[in-house]
């Protein structure tokens, strides 16, 4: 009953004077007229209450971890501890200018240094750079380091990056952005990589391979040791996409699996918030041989226990700088707080309970009739259902199931990823959800399954109980109304 207008509706025209007319009286007369804004800015002038009310009400139109179960596969929507937010917003951190000399920011540098150390311990790698702003930037940094490594050895022909067909879109996009050609490697019917196809692809032009393990198919790649041997044997390096690290956190270290370089999504595994699309942090970790190439800046500790930045001067072989400063520090602070809170025991527990929740949910959903994509396999921290049976029966698609879930106050799982499993739902409950929440999810899914068979229209037209119904995305792209014009 209360559509929310745009913020531009709130304009009390407090100050109708033309902007340019005021330049002199405001003390801008030292700036040449030609460099000044001519027209007034077409902006609203809402009152503080109007702003607060408008955005508070908009916030209520979101699903979020804090309000809803959010089993979005591949995204690790776990609880984001509030103490971490409180810590990161402390004035002592939040008001630090990036150009503050190191002696005046020892508190922060210590946090960052510890985080580097801890991430190295978790990944089984030699060293870490915290600067990438998200997973995809971590990937870019990682493959750039692979490139730099080969080039440093004069191995200039290694231009091809192997990537499983099931991989996340950022993997090929990052590889391309780093100047590589992409070779896709298929997976076998059990979800593991097709080793024959791998062998066929490997050669003197192989720069490396990008994998995540557990893979995006929700199962652990059992042949990882063999894959590593073969890729290394062919002179390539192994990149680990850390998106699924939650499945093995504190238990299996990518370094031990044979990976040479990886990123972590701190906004997944280390419980920093997603913020409606970011910011994330995509710290990269490497084995010894890639250490010289890590992006800068990094933090070092000297023999007196004082911390300082390492930058271009200290790191001559570095792939360089990926953003103007040292990365998403506020996110790093939150990740540090999370690790500090959990400690060693807590970190080890994460993967155990993430796996428990996923396997429990998988078993129960199978019991109520849903089809698993890999029924013979253990689920990792997530698993895939395919609703091709509903599609055959009644034309119900994964999207319809997803939209109907929203009606029951549950965020939809990831749909249509990985693209190679038809009509798939990728479900990741995370370790921070309770059995009661999982049971309710099963109950709702069972109800939806029944609706799909008996009243399919209900699903096709879902959602029914949200502020808007299903949106016309085709019209959106055609009209392309992407900004409200003054």
């Amino acid at each position, binding site marked *: 009953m209360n559509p929310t207008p745009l913020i531009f509706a*709130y304009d009390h025209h407090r100050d109708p004077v033309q902007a340019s007319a005021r330049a002199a009286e405001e003390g801008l007369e030292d700036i040449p007229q030609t460099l000044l804004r*001519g027209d007034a*800015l077409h902006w609203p002038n*809402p009152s*503080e209450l109007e702003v*607060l009310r408008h*955005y508070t009400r908009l*916030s209520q139109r979101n699903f979020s971890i804090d309000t*809803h179960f959010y089993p979005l596969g591949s*995204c690790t929507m776990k*609880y*984001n501890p509030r103490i971490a*937010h409180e810590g990161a*917003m402390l*004035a*002592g951190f*939040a*008001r*630090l200018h*990036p150009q503050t*000399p190191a002696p005046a920011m020892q*508190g922060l540098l210590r946090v960052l240094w510890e985080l580097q150390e*801890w991430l190295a*311990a978790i990944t089984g790698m030699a060293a870490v750079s915290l600067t990438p702003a*998200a997973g*995809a930037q971590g990937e*870019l940094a990682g493959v*750039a380091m692979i490139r730099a490594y080969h080039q440093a050895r004069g191995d200039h022909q290694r231009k091809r990056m192997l990537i499983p067909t099931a991989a*996340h879109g*950022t993997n090929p*996009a990052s590889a*391309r952005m780093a100047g590589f050609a992409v070779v896709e490697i298929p997976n076998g019917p059990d979800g593991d990589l097709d080793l024959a196809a791998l062998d066929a692809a490997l050669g003197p032009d192989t720069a490396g391979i990008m994998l995540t393990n557990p893979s995006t198919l929700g199962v*652990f790649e059992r042949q990882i040791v063999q894959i590593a041997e073969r890729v290394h044997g062919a002179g390539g390096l192994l990149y680990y996409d850390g998106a699924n690290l939650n499945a093995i956190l504190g238990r299996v270290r990518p370094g*031990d*699996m044979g990976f040479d370089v990886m990123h972590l999504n701190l906004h997944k595994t280390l419980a920093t*918030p997603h*913020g*409606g*699309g*970011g910011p994330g942090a995509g710290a990269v970790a490497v084995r010894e041989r890639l250490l010289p190439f890590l992006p800068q800046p990094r933090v070092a500790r000297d023999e007196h226990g004082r911390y300082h930045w390492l930058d271009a001067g200290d790191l001559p072989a570095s792939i360089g700088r990926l*953003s*103007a400063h*040292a990365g998403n520090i*506020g996110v790093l602070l939150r990740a540090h*707080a999370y690790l*500090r809170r959990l*400690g060693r025991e807590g*970190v*080890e527990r994460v993967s*155990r309970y993430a*796996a*428990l929740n996923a*396997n429990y949910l998988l078993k129960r959903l199978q019991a109520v009739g849903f089809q698993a994509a890999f029924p013979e396999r253990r689920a990792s921290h997530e698993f895939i259902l395919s609703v091709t049976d509903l599609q055959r029966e009644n034309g119900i698609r994964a999207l319809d199931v997803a939209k109907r879930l929203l009606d029951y106050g549950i965020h939809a799982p990831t749909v249509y990823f990985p693209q190679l499993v038809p009509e798939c739902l990728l479900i990741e409950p995370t370790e921070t959800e309770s059995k009661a929440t999982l049971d309710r999810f099963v109950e709702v899914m069972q109800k939806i399954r029944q609706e799909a068979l008996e009243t399919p229209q209900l699903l096709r037209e879902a*959602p029914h109980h*949200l502020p808007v119904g299903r*949106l016309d*995305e085709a*019209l959106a792209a055609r009209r392309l109304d*992407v900004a*409200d014009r003054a």
Partner: protein
Amino acid sequence: MPYIPHGADEVAQMQAAIGITDLEALFDEVPAQLEGHDLLLPAGLSEMALRRELEERAAANTPLRCFAGGGAYAHHIPAIVWEIAGRGEFYTAYTPYQAEASQGTLQVLYEYQSFLTRLTEMEVANASLYDGASALAEACLMALRLQGEGKAILVPDNLLPAWREVLHSILGLQEIPLLGVPYDRQTGRLQLPEGENDSAALIIPQINAFGGLEAVDALTDWAHARQMLAIAVVNPLALAILKAPGVWGQGGADLVVGEGQPLGIPLSAGGPFFGFLTCRKAHVRQMPGRLVARTVDVQGREGFCLTLQAREQHIRRGKATSNICTNQGLMVIAATIHMAALGGDGLRQTAVACHRQARRLRDLLADVPGVQWPFSGPFFHEFVLRLPLSAKAVRDTLLERGILAGICLAEWGMGEAGDLLVCVTELASDADLLDYRDALLATLKDLSA
């Protein structure tokens, strides 16, 4: 068990449902030799102990009155901004792929896009990139897609050095030629390259690394006359008073990028910030990053959704316009609330106050013996001060007086040893300016003694 809710009975029931008796069984597909390494992490802390440690670490950073800028600016952020942006519904939502369950985030992003297009006088704004510098790299890649690969980008020598480094890191991976454009040593402003030039685009920084204002109309026209695109790099707060890039020169800039931090984002030692990118509608299909569109639902009610996703990696994979996925969503939400909270009038007043206080400080410092201004010409809220001593020594001494006096250009590999880049924002009161002057006077005296 912090953050894990399972009671012992529940675990038992769940194990029974799975058909296992030990959680270890869940990992039976993992080769045994990969497990069991010692995890070198300290023991966990209670929330109470953690809070205390966090406060101690925060307190171990010296509180300073900030006169440093160089692409990151200390501004007042109204209390409501983070109060709202920190609400769980924004803070803990994912990217709004499920539009119907994300109308809050989506409408905010649409409003953000609208604010940014109005501010820059362009037609399309994406929903953020990682930061200003990486956004500039993306803009260059976009320009190359529009102009044809293999061409060069003209990169001003008076662009912030970290930004130049980022261009080299990112564009270097594809071996894109970057050609420097020199600046005039008297004014600090760009000198137009002479002769032929078939580069893809010219980057035009307003303000430049010295706080100086460029002749943006002429630069834009120069680029267009040579079939180059003009890529504007702007400070969004400055645009409240400065000419919008959309109307620079005859045709306006083609791509506009910048660092969004001055719009309500805490300094936070350099991040998370966000990069913005605006362009003309004609070029939207080459744009990197997310876009939100206004549309209608099945009943004709207005709503918002992501659009043109086929440009993005999750659809187009290796052929996407960028690899970006997670962007800086929450920062954009905060920036939108910030822009609304200030309103048009407030944004302008803030920009004016910054500049006024910067001029005041400059006037005050005119009294300080031995101090010079290496660059003539107009500036916005930031300027270079040439000290008769090492700027580094002066800056480090002023730290003890609780003042971050500026940025030493020498540390950036620019200017002379005495050059200090000083920025003044609305946060600096008149008393702060006097303190700065007095502290500088005293320090110069002490250090020369």
